[in-house]
């Protein structure tokens, strides 16, 4: 895994420990613990998983096995402006793939990656339930509906100087 190594601050370790404690340090609560931790750090670097494995008294390999199983969990930090392109069927048949391709082309990154400057990351989602707006793109908290590949440039422009 090519993640940059980080050193957790004591306070951060304590935060993870507190989360584990909230769930009684039960290994069966691993997924809940990972959710809470990810919402705290934005991602789940290996160092964080080490603490969780220790606190829940389970093997690190198992924790990693769970983290890599679920697409919601990520070991790479997302961009400042995370771009989610809905690839649900409704969006797909209305051209989401072209939109996704265009984001990838413009930003020169693949799905799941973050631009070098840390500004943007691209993810594809499975149905955000806004099928009436298909194809849907979400950047941060903002939702864009009926997006075409020609709109991509303008959407990115909105964030370039932010």
């Amino acid at each position, binding site marked *: 895994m090519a993640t940059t190594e980080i050193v957790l601050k004591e306070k951060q370790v304590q935060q993870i420990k507190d989360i584990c404690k909230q769930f009684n340090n039960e290994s069966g609560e691993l997924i809940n613990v990972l959710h809470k931790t990810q919402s705290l750090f934005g991602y789940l670097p290996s160092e964080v998983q080490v603490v969780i494995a220790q606190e829940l008294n389970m093997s690190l390999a198992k924790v990693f096995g769970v983290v890599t199983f679920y697409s919601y969990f990520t070991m790479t930090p997302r961009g400042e402006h995370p771009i989610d392109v809905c690839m649900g069927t*409704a969006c797909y048949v209305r051209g989401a793939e072209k939109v996704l391709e265009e984001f990838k082309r413009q930003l020169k990154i693949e799905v799941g990656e973050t631009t070098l400057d840390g500004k943007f990351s691209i993810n594809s989602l499975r149905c955000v339930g806004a*099928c009436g707006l298909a194809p849907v793109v979400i950047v941060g908290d903002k939702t864009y509906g009926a997006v075409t590949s020609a709109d991509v440039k303008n959407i990115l422009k909105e964030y370039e100087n932010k």
Partner: protein
Amino acid sequence: MGNYKTEILICGGSGCKASQTVLTAKLLREVLEENNLSSEVQVVMTGCFGFCEKGPIVKIMPDNTFYVKVKPEDARELIEEHIIKGKKVNRLLYVDPKTKEIISDSKHMGFYKKQNRIALRNCGVIDPENIDEAIARNAYTALGKVLNEMTPEVAIDVMKKSGMRGRGGGGFPTGMKWDITSKSPAGQKYVVCNADEGDPGAFMDRSILEGDPHSVLEAMAICGYCIGADTGLIYIRAEYPLAIERLKIAIKQAREKGLLGNDILGKGFSFDVELKYGAGAFVCGEETALISSMEGLRGEPTFKPPFPSVEGYLGKPTNVNNVETFASIPEIFNKGAEWFASIGNEKSKGTKVFALAGKINNVGLIEVPMGTTLREVIYEIGGGIKDGKKFKAVQTGGPSGGCLTSKDLDTPIDYDNLIAAGSMMGSGGMIVLDEDDCMVSIAKFYLEFTVEESCGKCSPCRIGNKRLHEILEKICKGNGTLEDLEQLRNLSKVIKDTSLCGLGQTSPNPILSTLDNFYDEYLEHVHDKKCRAGVCKSLMKYVIEPDTCIGCTACVRVCPVDAISGEKKMSHLINQATCIKCGACYDKCKFNAILIK
């Protein structure tokens, strides 16, 4: 309370919220305040109205006026015109696309006419964050009735008589499932609500949880009473933050009212509900995988038997039903098994919620009696195909389902007919496809999904689906052979025959059904190296028709790779070597001068 003269209901479902209904609601309240109307007019944020195509929806009561596509900037006009002057804002009213008639009562719209909302009965009607409104609409009376009047056996019998079948896809009789779990040796048991809606293009479970969480909680408690469980768990996708929030509120309010917790309604029955979160794995919709995931493990399915009803969560008997199933149940007890069984057809009773999407005019969430035909759904409720294009197919059952074609349009929709037609009910995704859709690409789309979502535990699904996808890619690139088509069919059958769980057992369905119904399209890809829908990039190119092009340069400006050249007011040319076939020029050209060849 109760003194409001008018209520403005505004959709607070995820889809409409994406279109800023929270802001709209805020502005509505502000304008009301400005006009000293806050005590007379109440703005209520409800769940989804279903008519997503026209969202955001605002409905004014008791005037029964249904406004569509309401944006924040419309708030002032709505208050000043409709509320203050009693004047309808015509431009925000629904216009029937055929008759051009303005319709303000949703009941008279084609979209709603044929619907019968049981699972969705409270969605778009009540404020899901206020238990009082749910109670006013009969919430928890079914639970009260069951606790007061029925033994678990009798209640299970009601379920059996109702003919209810699981709405999650398989269609297993719900009463029978409850019966089996109730007969598992006593001790700790669990009721699990499967809210891990993973089918891309289906969002009924989310809408129900967002719009009417109490009906699910109530039904889970009824189930708990029937099978002898005191704990309910809702396994919900973490990608559904709004549904999670509303469920949390609902659980809290139900506890405060004593409708969850100890000694519910004084009958000595205790039941409480906790949330467990999914983390983005479609396979967790499969009940054994869901249970693994709830236990904090990788969401890998296990071989059945043992079924969860015998050995489920933490090894204890567990009854798993999905959201829509639960949401329908209180009405069965309120109105009777006979009432429910009278809706639908011979083998499939009640109603089914579908998420209608794709190339259709009325995208949205609908609930129709079982046995409604596809034609009714697509042409009457759905309002026909978008942009006057030609209907090609409708995909049901998501990645596990198949494509139905015009020959199936008059087939009554039920579990068995859909399977007979080569598809399945699934969770209720219904994607309409038109002439611009390439059926090979559609199959490829679903296989890509399956490949991504396969857990990897069994070899046919792990490797077989990958190979299927690779063959489809090869075909779409124009490198397919006739043997590949044969290979697709054979491999699909073996994968179905040998896979461990429902995901693999159904994942080749999109291929098999498109092979059956659109073999000529496959042949064209393989033989003629042609994609008639112009979707497969390797088999198509964009060209400018010199006679039609007026040289407006719109395409030049939109082309991301500067592949288009030409003088102003002169016909343009696309450099095929540079063109990345993104289609931006095609979408942009107002003169239909760009053709797909």
